[in-house]
């Protein structure tokens, strides 16, 4: 490998440096992930000492499990909405904050604040806001005369998933905003000045200068948002436990309930394997680009 760098040390020394982290990584991430793959081919209940290998049964049974179908659909809706809305809102905020605005650092701080809170705390806050009797959201609707719109947001099928997504959007807008703000600073002001001289309006400047200039940022923002979306667990678990009924069940929560409540560890891990394979497959281009860039 010709890198133009002088690398020092013998190979053995390098491995000594790499070993502790690689050991932890393989022991507690790679190995468990592989074991899950194995468990997914068994009928293990999670408790007994023995189990049978059942091949692909757990996987072929999934299409007959209405909850898995619902969870997969919910995951998909969740991914689309909690990627698109925060990215678009985050971009709008970044563009606005990049203009002539006072108090930029404070505004940036406020919009990003929800993102640093524990997901359980975010779930608690929104559960509290959505409370049918004491919640601020229904109180607000009643205060402005829209009593008819007040409802048990998390307690009924028709609104529960949407209500959890609002919480997710709240906490996720800050991240694209930060990345876009950083990226906007890389776009030359001269381009805008030249465009202004040529008589281009604000929208034209946005479409022809800002958007192309942000292309690398779009890629990173969307890739990371998609990866994050597929992992959804904490927020749903802490807000609704997948309910009411199965209205907000996602693959992660359904996996959890199968393993820890219904004693179906084999089936549960199969569900986890499916979502992991999808998540990894979707993110491989991103991981490749990162590796290439860094290793090159």
């Amino acid at each position, binding site marked *: 490998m010709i890198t133009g760098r002088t690398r020092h040390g013998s190979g053995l020394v390098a491995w000594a440096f790499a070993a502790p982290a690689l050991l932890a990584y393989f022991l507690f991430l790679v190995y468990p992930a592989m074991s899950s793959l194995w468990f997914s081919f068994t009928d293990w209940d999670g408790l007994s000492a023995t189990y049978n290998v059942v091949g692909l049964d757990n996987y072929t049974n999934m299409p007959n499990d209405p909850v898995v179908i619902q969870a997969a659909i919910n995951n998909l809706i969740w991914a689309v909405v909690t990627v698109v809305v925060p990215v678009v809102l985050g971009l709008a905020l970044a563009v606005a904050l990049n203009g002539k605005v006072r108090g930029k650092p404070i505004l940036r701080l406020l919009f990003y604040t929800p993102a640093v809170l524990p997901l359980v705390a975010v779930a608690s806050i929104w559960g509290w806001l959505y409370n049918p009797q004491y919640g601020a959201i229904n109180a607000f609707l009643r205060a402005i005369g829209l009593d008819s719109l007040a409802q048990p947001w998390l307690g009924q099928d028709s609104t529960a998933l949407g209500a959890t997504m609002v919480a997710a959007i709240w906490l996720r807008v800050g991240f694209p905003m930060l990345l876009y703000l950083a990226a906007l600073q890389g776009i030359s002001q001269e381009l805008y000045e030249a465009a202004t001289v040529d008589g281009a309006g604000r929208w034209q400047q946005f479409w022809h200068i800002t958007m192309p200039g942000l292309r*690398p940022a779009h890629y990173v923002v969307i890739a990371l948002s998609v990866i994050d979306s*597929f992992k959804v667990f904490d927020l749903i678990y802490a807000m609704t436990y997948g309910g009411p009924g199965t209205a907000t069940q996602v693959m992660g929560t359904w996996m959890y309930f199968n393993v820890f409540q219904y004693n179906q560890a084999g089936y549960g891990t199969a569900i986890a394997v499916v979502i992991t394979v999808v998540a990894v497959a979707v993110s491989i281009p991103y991981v490749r680009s990162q590796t290439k860039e*860094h290793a090159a």
Partner: protein
Amino acid sequence: MTSVAPTAALPEATIAPAGRPPRPQGGAGTTVLMALAALVWISPLVLLVITALRPLSDFVANGPLSWPGSFTFGNFADAWNIGNFANTYRNSTILLVLKVPLGVFISAMLAYALAKLRIRFGAAIMYTVFLGLTIPIYITIVPVFVMARSAGLTDSLIGLIGPYLAFGIPFEVLVLQSFIRQIPDEIIEAARIDGAGAWRIFLTIVLPLSAPALVTVLILDAVATWNEFLFALILLSSDANKTIPVGLLNFQGQFSNNSTGLAAGILIAVVPILIAYTFLQRWIVGGLTAGAAKG
């Protein structure tokens, strides 16, 4: 770890606080609009603070949106005791102190090996480690639970350290190795000619020069560790061993009819992270946006 921060792995890790030449200020209209939007965005937290500071009777009588007739700190005392926060604070702090420096240190070692040492399969190692960013924690919970049980480490904070380390490593290595890569080889070469070995170079040159990146990953890892939920939920069972997120979940269930107590409890759980974020945001923002502009 928990979602947002650790997956924020970005191309280049030139950790520089955002800054640029001063521009003419103005734009009162946009400023007012953005301030209003920010206020709406932060209103759940504002409401939380106001509610936590008022007596329950006042809240019940006047509703969640009214301005309190009187203020009290009593809710915090109640919430602190009922929510078992003395224990959960202690446990989360112990985990933070044990896990975060260790995780960052071994990640820095791997990052140094990948960036500056002769290591075979470097690209393959990187690919494997970065792939960890995309793996949902829940695919590992069954085997991790089984491993912890056979090692006698269920319901123990120590049992959490291994999984926490593993899920922190991908992001930490991604940021650190791209930062270490930018350290000029001449410095390292000079030290080597003076007879310094790899270990000495790592401790006396690489680590000190990586301080900005180290601070960033330390902070982000601390936030992620403090907020982690799923492993703590499955591995910890007794109240004495629970961490803040798991404790908060139980607390939430008990307090569904006591809005002011619930608000106080949520605040108790998030205040350290809010304070840390306010003071350390420069590094958090720097770490998350590192190099995004360059792509």
